[in-house]
C-alpha cells in the first residue's frame, strides 16, 4: 500500500525559515552556527530546543532527495569537495568530505558507534579533558541515538559482500559483528555515498536540521563564512558571501551574534580560525584522518554484486585497542572503484571486467601520528599529513588479515591497494611488503578530526572541554575537530554526542 507523501514543512527548502538571499544579507541573531553537519546541525537543534534564537549557516547547497539520482557522474560534483579529488598535500591520501545542508552525514554510510568508554577515559586521563566520561555523555549519546533512530543492521539486510567477509572471518576464527546504523525501513538500493534518494538514511539534513527548524531556527544554505571579526576576546561579526541558488548571484553576508559556533569540519573549522587570526598555536595542529586501505578480492565464479544492498554491513574491531585498526566491509560504484584501484591500462580493465565477482573490505587505522591544517596564500586549506611509519605498520597488519580472510573465504586473488601482483597464497601473505610512501599505495580518508583539539591546558589544546576557543569569550567549536585523538571508529555519533553535550552546557555569554 502506498503511504502518504512526506508532509513535514521542515524538510521543504521552500519553508520560510530557509532563507534565500536575493541581495546583501545582514543578520542579527543570538547564536550563529557555522556548518550544518554532524556537529553543527546537532548543536543548532539543541540550542533551538532550549529556546535560543539560532541561525544555521551552511556553505553548501540544500540538496534534497529529488536531486539525488544515484549517478556518480552527477552526485560526486554535487556533494564532495573538489569533486572528490582532494588529497593531502603529498598526494598520498584522497580526502573525502561533503559540502551541503547536513554536511558529510548526507553521503556517509550510516555506521553508528557510540564513543567507547576506554576512549573517553583515555581523553580524560591522558589529554586532560574534563567532564566527558561515559557517565557525563550518557544522556546526550542516548538522545542522538534516539533522534537518528539507530538500530542494528538486521540479518536479512546484510549484503553479499559482507557475507563473504563473514565467511572468511568465521574460517580464520576471529570475531566480527554487523554494524548499528541510522537507517529506517531501508530499501537496500545501495547508493548511500551518493545521498539517499528515499530519505531512509537518517542523515542530518532530514533529522537534526528540520528538528532545529521546528524549534524556530533559521537555515541559510550557500552561506559561506570567510572571516570572524573580533573586538578584544569577543567575536562580534562573521562575514562572507551568500549565493542565491535560483539566480546564481552572490552577495555579501554579515552576521552579528552574541555567540558563534564553528562546525565546519576538521579541515574548514581551523581554516576559518586561522584566517581570522583567532585562537592559539594549537589551531590546525593534531589533524588525524583514519587512513583507509582496501583489498579487492576476486571471488572466482561466485557472483557477488557487492554494489547491491547496504554498502557497509560488517566489521571486526577486536584489534582496535592493542593494534590500532578495524576492518570494515565496503564497496563503491564503478567510477569510485576504478579510481581507487591501483591499476591502469589492461590490468585495470581486466579487474573491472571482474567487477561483479569482486568483494571488498578495508583496514581503517587509528592514526597515532598527526598532521596539520594550514592556509596557503590563496586562503585555502592545505592538509599537511603523511602516513607515519608506525601507522603504516597498522595498515600492513590489517592488509595481511584481510588477505587471509578473503583467501579463506574462497578468493582466487586478493588485490592490495598498490600496483603489482595480487595475493594468492599464504606464502604471499607471509612475504607481503607494501611501500607506504606517498602515491605508491591507494589510501583514502573519510573521517577527518582533531585539528582543534579539546583539553584544559591551552599549551596542548585549542578549545576547552566545553568547546570554547581559548582566548575568546564567545566562540565555540562543535565538530570532529575537537577530538583530542583519532578514535579508530566511525565518528558521526561521537561528533553529534559531543555537540549535544556542549550545547547542554552552553550558557548565554555575559554582556561585555
Amino acid at each position: 500500500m502506498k503511504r502518504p507523501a512526506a508532509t513535514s514543512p521542515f524538510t521543504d527548502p521552500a519553508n520560510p525559515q530557509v532563507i534565500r538571499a536575493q541581495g546583501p544579507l545582514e543578520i542579527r541573531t543570538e547564536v550563529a552556527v557555522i556548518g550544518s553537519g554532524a556537529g553543527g546541525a546537532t548543536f543548532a537543534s539543541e540550542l533551538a530546543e532550549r529556546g535560543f534564537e539560532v541561525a544555521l549557516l551552511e556553505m553548501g547547497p540544500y540538496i534534497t532527495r529529488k536531486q539525488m539520482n544515484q549517478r556518480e557522474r552527477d552526485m560526486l560534483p554535487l556533494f564532495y569537495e573538489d569533486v572528490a579529488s582532494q588529497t593531502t598535500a603529498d598526494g598520498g591520501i584522497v580526502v573525502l568530505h561533503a559540502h551541503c545542508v547536513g554536511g558529510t552525514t548526507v553521503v556517509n554510510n550510516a555506521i553508528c558507534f557510540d564513543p567507547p568508554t576506554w576512549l573517553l577515559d583515555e581523553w580524560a586521563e591522558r589529554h586532560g579533558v574534563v567532564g566527558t566520561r561515559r557517565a557525563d555523555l550518557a544522556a546526550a549519546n542516548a538522545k542522538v541515538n534516539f533522534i537518528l533512530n539507530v538500530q542494528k543492521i538486521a540479518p536479512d539486510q546484510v549484503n553479499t559482500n559482507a557475507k563473504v567477509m563473514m565467511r572468511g572471518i568465521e574460517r580464520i576464527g576471529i570475531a566480527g559483528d554487523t554494524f548499528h546504523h541510522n537507517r529506517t525501513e531501508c530499501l537496500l538500493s545501495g547508493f548511500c555515498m551518493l545521498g539517499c534518494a528515499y530519505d531512509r538514511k537518517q542523515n542530518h539534513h532530514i533529522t537534526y536540521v528540520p528538528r532545529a527548524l521546528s524549534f524556530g531556527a533559521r537555515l541559510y544554505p550557500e552561506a559561506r563564512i570567510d572571516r570572524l571579526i573580533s573586538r578584544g576576546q569577543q567575536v562580534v561579526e562573521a562575514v562572507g558571501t551568500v549565493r542565491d541558488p535560483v539566480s546564481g548571484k552572490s552577495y555579501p553576508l554579515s552576521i552579528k551574534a552574541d555567540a558563534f559556533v564553528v562546525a565546519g569540519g576538521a579541515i574548514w573549522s581551523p581554516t576559518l580560525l586561522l584566517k581570522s587570526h583567532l585562537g592559539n598555536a594549537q589551531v590546525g595542529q593534531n589533524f588525524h584522518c583514519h587512513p583507509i586501505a582496501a583489498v579487492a578480492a576476486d571471488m572466482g565464479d561466485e557472483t557477488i554484486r557487492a554494489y547491491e544492498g547496504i554498502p557497509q554491513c560488517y566489521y571486526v574491531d577486536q584489534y582496535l585497542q592493542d593494534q590500532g585498526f578495524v576492518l570494515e566491509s565496503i564497496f563503491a560504484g564503478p567510477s569510485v572503484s576504478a579510481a581507487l584501484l591501483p591499476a591502469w591500462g589492461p590490468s585495470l580493465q581486466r579487474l573491472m571486467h571482474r567487477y561483479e565477482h569482486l568483494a571488498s573490505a578495508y583496514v581503517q587505522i587509528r592514526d597515532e601520528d598527526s598532521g596539520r591544517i594550514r592556509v596557503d596564500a590563496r586562503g585555502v586549506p592545505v592538509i599537511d599529513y603523511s602516513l607515519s611509519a608506525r601507522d603504516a605498520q597498522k595498515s600492513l597488519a590489517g592488509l595481511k588479515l584481510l588477505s587471509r580472510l578473503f583467501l579463506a573465504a574462497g578468493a582466487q586473488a586478493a588485490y592490495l591497494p598498490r600496483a603489482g601482483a595480487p595475493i594468492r597464497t599464504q606464502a604471499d601473505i607471509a612475504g607481503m611488503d607494501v611501500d607506504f610512501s606517498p602515491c605508491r599505495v591507494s589510501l583514502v580518508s573519510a573521517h577527518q578530526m582533531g585539528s582543534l583539539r579539546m583539553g584544559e591546558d591551552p599549551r596542548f589544546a585549542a578549545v576547552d572541554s566545553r568547546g570554547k576557543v581559548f582566548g575568546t569569550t564567545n566562540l565555540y567549536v562543535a565538530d570532529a575537530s575537537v577530538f583530542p585523538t583519532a578514535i579508530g571508529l566511525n565518528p558521526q555519533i561521537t561528533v553529534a554526542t559531543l555537540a549535544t553535550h556542549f550545547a547542554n552546557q552552553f550558557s548565554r555569554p555575559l554582556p561585555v
Partner: protein
Amino acid sequence: MSRRAFLVRAGGLLVAASLPVGCAGPAFRAPGFQLRYFSPFEYAVVTRVADRIVPGGYGLPDPGSLGVARQADGVLALLDPSLEADFHQLLTLFDRVPILAGRLGSFLTQGPRGADAYLAAWENSPFELLRHGFQGLRRLAAAVYYADPRTWAILHYAGPWVGRIDVGYGLANQGNGPQVNPNVYSRFPA
C-alpha cells in the same frame, strides 16, 4: 587531484617545463566543440592519457568513443578556481618534461608503448611530486570512464534505481517518499 600544493611544490620543475621541449601548445587545433577548461594542447594530452589508462578491451568501449577527455574537461571546469591552476600546470609539466620520465621526446610524441613507459616512469618515479601527478591523471581518466553508463553492461552493473525501479511512488516521483523515522520531531524521553 591535488590539494592546492602541487603548484607550489612543482616550482622548480615548472621552470624546466617552460623550456621549449616536446610539443608546443599552439600547434594543437581545437576540437570541434567548446572546451571549458582545457586548452587544445591539454585536451590532446588528456585524450592520450585516457587511451592508455582505460584502453577498452574485454568488450569495454574505447575512451575516444565515450569522449573521456571531453567529459574530463567538464569535470575540471567545476573545480574551485584555486585548484584549476594546479591541473593546468600538471598537464604542461607532464607533457613537456620528458627527461623526468627518462624518455626522449614529449608524451604526445610517443607511440603506444612509449606512452605506457612514460606513464610508468611517472607512476614509479622516485619524485613524490611526479607520482602525485600521475595518480591525479590516472584517477581522473578512470573515474570519468567508469562513470559513463556505456561501460556498465560489461561490468554487469545495473546502475541507478532512480528512473528504473519504482519503489512505490511512481518512477518519475521518487522524491515523494514518506518520513519514516518517528523520532525526528519527538521529545526525547529523558
